[in-house]
């Protein structure tokens, strides 16, 4: 469902990887959208395709991966088929990106200030002095103390959490409308994770930037996001408002994910888990990709692949919620 006010629309995106042994379909008909200023969480297991979705959106898929079909629209304009130079101008200015490991995201041979000023002057056309002032402001906004001195330090002189703040500052330097954050806290200490997430949320709200937050941590999703998309084997299983998806999951996979999180007030001997594992990309079963593991599976699941269907409040790709099934029951 696309509305004229969507900032980002992804329609029927397919990403494939041609290999010697055949073509792997890494993203299979993925569609969702993000409204301006909204925080969308994208959650799923490793290999489900979350990071690839982010990479496809900013146009930095690692070759030989490529977009096979589908569209990506930013503010109503297609960006998936733009020539390199035009896409480059969009990157950083309209769409920012944050990656997982702050240690390797920054060039160790250049000062933090130089990397910031470079980004600012590339997109905002400010003079050197103005750009430097803006850079110091950004560092202060992201909570780095003594920004005026630290701006001339090298990345290795910052701690892990501080570095990720610098990375956030860099991503926000040109005031983009959308930030694609790929597991921004996974590489950090647990005590720092919460700080960074709340920082991200705050500065994005202040600048009015939307966020696509890719993570495997449901806790972060619950705390931070407005809506959440659940991915499985390169497909979307469910997408909807956070409260709905967490408390009333419509897709059995989401229900399994929620169920596996132990509650604080429960007494448990064994952790609940979903039996089996996510299929490899070259061995996705026909019909619904989840059918071998689904406790509620029936015949139609094994044959036909479900599209995203409306359920009260959310949308889920599950035959349980199709109108026909209702009728049969």
């Amino acid at each position, binding site marked *: 469902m696309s509305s004229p006010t969507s900032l980002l629309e992804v329609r029927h995106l397919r990403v494939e990887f041609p290999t010697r042994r055949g073509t792997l379909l890494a993203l299979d008909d993925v569609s969702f959208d993000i409204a301006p200023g909204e925080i969308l969480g994208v959650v799923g297991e490793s290999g489900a395709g979350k990071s690839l979705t982010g990479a496809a959106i*900013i146009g*930095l898929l690692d070759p030989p991966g490529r977009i096979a079909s589908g569209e990506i629209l930013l503010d109503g304009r297609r960006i998936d088929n733009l020539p390199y130079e035009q896409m*480059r*101008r*969009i*990157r*950083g*200015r309209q769409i*920012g*990106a944050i*990656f997982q*490991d702050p240690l*390797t*995201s*920054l*060039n*160790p*041979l*250049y000062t933090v200030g130089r990397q910031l000023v*470079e*980004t600012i002057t*590339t*997109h905002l056309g400010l003079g050197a002095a103005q750009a430097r002032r803006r850079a110091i402001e950004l560092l202060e906004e992201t909570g780095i103390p003594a920004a005026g001195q630290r701006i001339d330090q*090298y990345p*290795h*002189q910052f*701690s892990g959490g501080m570095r990720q703040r610098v*990375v956030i500052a*860099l*991503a926000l*330097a*040109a005031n983009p409308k959308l930030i694609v954050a790929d597991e921004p806290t996974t590489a950090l200490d647990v005590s720092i994770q919460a700080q960074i997430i709340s920082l991200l949320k705050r500065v994005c709200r202040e600048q009015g930037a939307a966020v696509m937050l890719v993570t495997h941590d449901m806790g972060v999703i619950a705390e931070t996001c407005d809506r959440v998309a659940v991915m499985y084997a390169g497909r979307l299983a469910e997408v909807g408002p956070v409260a709905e998806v967490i408390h009333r999951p419509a897709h059995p996979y989401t229900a399994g994910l929620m169920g596996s999180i132990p509650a604080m007030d429960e007494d448990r001997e064994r952790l609940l888990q979903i039996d089996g594992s996510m299929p490899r990309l070259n061995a996705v079963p026909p019909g619904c990709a989840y059918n071998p593991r689904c406790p509620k599976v029936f015949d139609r699941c094994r044959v036909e692949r479900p599209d995203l269907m409306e359920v009260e409040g959310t949308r889920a790709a599950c035959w349980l919620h199709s109108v026909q099934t209702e009728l049969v029951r």
Partner: protein
Amino acid sequence: MFVFILRRLVQALIVMLAVAFIAFMLFQYVGDPVSNMLGQDATPEQRAELRRQLGLDAAFPVQFAHFVANAVQGDFGLSLRQGRQVSSLIVERFPATLELSLVAALIALGAGIPLGVYAALRRGRFGAQLLMMLSLLGVSLPTFLIGILLILVFAVLLKWLPSFGRGDVVAFGPWTTGLLTADGLRHLLLPAVTLAVFQLTLIMRLVRAEMLEVLRTDYIKFARARGLSDRAIYFGHALKNTLVPVITITGLQLGSLIAFSIITETVFQWPGMGLLFIQAVQFADIPVMAAYLCLISLIFVTINLAVDLLYFSVDPRLRAEGKAH
């Protein structure tokens, strides 16, 4: 940082002493210096006298200390082949080798780095693949063969350039240079190119490999995600990160240039230290061999030290070593 320099100096000293030791062993035990000097028909009294004079009857450590003391002053005795002071021979020949090596290094770096960058950025295209194939050829051609081929083409067939010797040289005190005369430059060209080819190939392959590695890193990906221009990414970020490890290896290569000049000087009859050394090996002229060994080691150790210091000043991460976070 001071500690670092001190440690490296001590290491260098140890290496020099080890080399001096090897040179000393050569002197003492390979061939008999006394027979070498006096010939086979010397009487036992003459031998004993010379032994005493040379201090060969003293204890081992004393002889070694003597040797080192002499070596530091540059005194290695007389050449067995030519009967002259080894030190004066070396001083005479040193400028020729140094000039040749420096010019070759300039050629190798000046062409190797840009070609390597080109081969990395235009990877997969025809030009880059052609370069890689040529580089493989460069590594498979022994230096002496390159010299012979160049002589064949430019001296024998085309008759454009001379094929041996140094040509006209200008003397500044003990130093002689061929760079200031047209004739000297013409003589310098073929040998320098010959010497440079192998290094050029290595540098090109190294730069290409390093650059490809760097282009795969996260910080380059992040720079791209920030929308920086290609020029900023390739020549701002990638190039600087590529050149840092290249510096070390190139610096060491400079040392090997001086060693490889042995071959080039032989092919072109270039009157340098290398030719001197090879003649010494053929003749088993131990004093010259020992002196060359010590001098070369000194040069290598100095170059290594200089490269380490350079590395230090370029990579900010090393400067922080020892400083608390």
